[in-house]
């Protein structure tokens, strides 16, 4: 992805999208060795790797990837609060995947169709993200329409994460996409999948802990600080070292 350079890429947008991918990749990486079935060890790692690849391209548009990932403080991260939410049980991870990958697929498809600085990345990433969304959809169907217990767990997960979904449709400086149109299509798509999974579309408010858009402004949730502490510890313990 060398078609665009830091000079032309809007830094705010590159950080927002790059941090989303970085943080969700990290959370999915936490599943390694803990997945419910061997096929999911492979699938979750695969999604995490795709996201990490996207993050590296996006962060490199904004600066040095490692400096940005390892040396920023929590308040400087611009990711959605949704992606930093702890894995929870498999249903929570799948609900988070459904909400985020549906958004990411719609957003990247639009970016790929345009001629802005993110078009080359989005054109490649949208193919990966289509798989992520399909994976989330298939599991939402299995869990929602599986057993009584899996149905209840999955409904709880969808409800719990619902309040973090409004943030995806706040305008981001440097992105020319139409957030309202994106939101309409996102709601249609998620409503369709939840319906087929015999789940109820949650009714609560769709804004975060403070206001919708908090993560994009550097306001995160409590578990995020611990996640960063773990992620950054080794790198920060050896200032200036190469790895």
């Amino acid at each position, binding site marked *: 992805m060398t078609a665009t350079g830091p000079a032309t890429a809007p830094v705010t947008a590159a950080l927002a999208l790059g941090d989303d991918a*970085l943080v969700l990749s*990290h959370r999915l*990486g*936490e599943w*390694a*060795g*803990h*997945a*419910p*079935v*061997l*096929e*999911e*060890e*492979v699938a979750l*790692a*695969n999604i*995490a*790797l795709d996201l*990490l*690849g996207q*993050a*590296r391209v996006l*962060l490199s548009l904004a600066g040095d*990837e*490692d400096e940005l*990932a*390892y040396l920023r403080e929590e308040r400087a991260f611009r990711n959605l609060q949704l992606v930093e939410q702890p894995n929870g*049980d*498999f249903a929570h991870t799948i609900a988070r995947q459904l909400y985020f990958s549906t958004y990411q697929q719609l957003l990247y498809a639009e970016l790929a169709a345009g001629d802005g600085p993110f078009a080359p990345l989005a054109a490649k990433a949208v193919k990966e993200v289509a798989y992520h969304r399909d994976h989330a959809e298939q599991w939402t*169907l*299995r*869990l929602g*329409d*599986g*057993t009584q*217990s*899996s149905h209840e*767990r999955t409904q709880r997960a969808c409800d719990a994460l619902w309040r973090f979904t409004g943030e995806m449709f706040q305008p981001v400086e440097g992105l020319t996409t139409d957030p309202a149109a994106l939101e309409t299509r996102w709601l249609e798509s998620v409503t369709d999948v939840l319906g087929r999974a015999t789940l109820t579309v949650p009714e609560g408010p769709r804004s975060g802990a403070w206001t919708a858009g908090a993560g994009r402004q550097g306001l995160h949730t409590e578990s995020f600080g611990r996640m960063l502490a*773990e*992620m950054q*510890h*080794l*790198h920060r313990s*050896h200032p*200036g*070292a*190469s*790895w």
Partner: protein
Amino acid sequence: MATAAAQRTAGTETDGAPGTVDTTAYQHAFDAAVAADERIEPRDWMPDAYRSTLIRQIAQHAHSEIIGMQPEANWITRAPSLRRKAILMAKVQDEAGHGLYLYSAAETLGTSRDELLDKLHTGRQKYSSIFNYPTLTWADVGAIGWLVDGAAITNQVPLCRCSYGPYARAMVRICKEESFHQRQGYELLLALGKGTPEQHAMAQDAVNRWWWPSLMMFGPPDDESQHSAQSMEWKIKRHSNDELRQRFVDICVPQAESLGLTLPDPDLRWNEERGHHDFGSIDWTEFWEVLKGNGPCNEQRITQRKRAHDEGAWVREAAAAYAAKHTGGTGETGATRA
């Protein structure tokens, strides 16, 4: 295999009396195929002991892949650069993939992944003892790649010519990926070896801890190895434990020099007469203790594996229930089998 037809012919000749199949002709065809370096395939007749030896060995290998994910996954969330993190995640993912191929290879012998996992969880089947050692620093990820994967490749390359076809073919692919793993470990240690004094010390400490357990990976000395002779006769195994161990030591010595690291063995020196390196004696008491379950992480590894399996039970049940509802089938899908 070329003699499969011969075996089937032998079968028709001896199938005359129901219930009293004379296996002599099958045995001759099997022996001839092995002697001619042909592959035995799942539908071919094979001696029961050959089948059970293979199931034991392939299952142990598959279990080693999935337990082996744990010590390395321990560092995914702390990898010190995004490049290293991507490499490590890909490596751990490969190991899950190897587990999948190997359980599938074992299934061609008439067992199931469920059954094998149950044996792992209840201690009736083993995994490589090397994974009962902890990964204490980032350099351990490098030492595992260089030494543990290096030893594994030395053991496994000959398995690509193993007499059992599905196992041999799985090993071809696995060895290609393992070779990448070994190189990434070497390259990781090289960066540390040439890095700051703290990084160099971290690398040396890791090599000090992993060297002797890696030599133990080749198994007990030839005169104490209970399965070796028969396995060599069947061409499941092609070189003795001691031969492979010597090959590994000879490969590692010059590599350690290039890394700027030392191997923790004062008796290690080149023997001109033998054309090999002499090395110190291995602490076999430690080997047998770890094998018996008294290593630093035996309990932890199996507990984590069982917890992941138990906590995932509702997910597998949901997938089975969904498949039964929507395909009218039994719910036996790839996603529900483990």
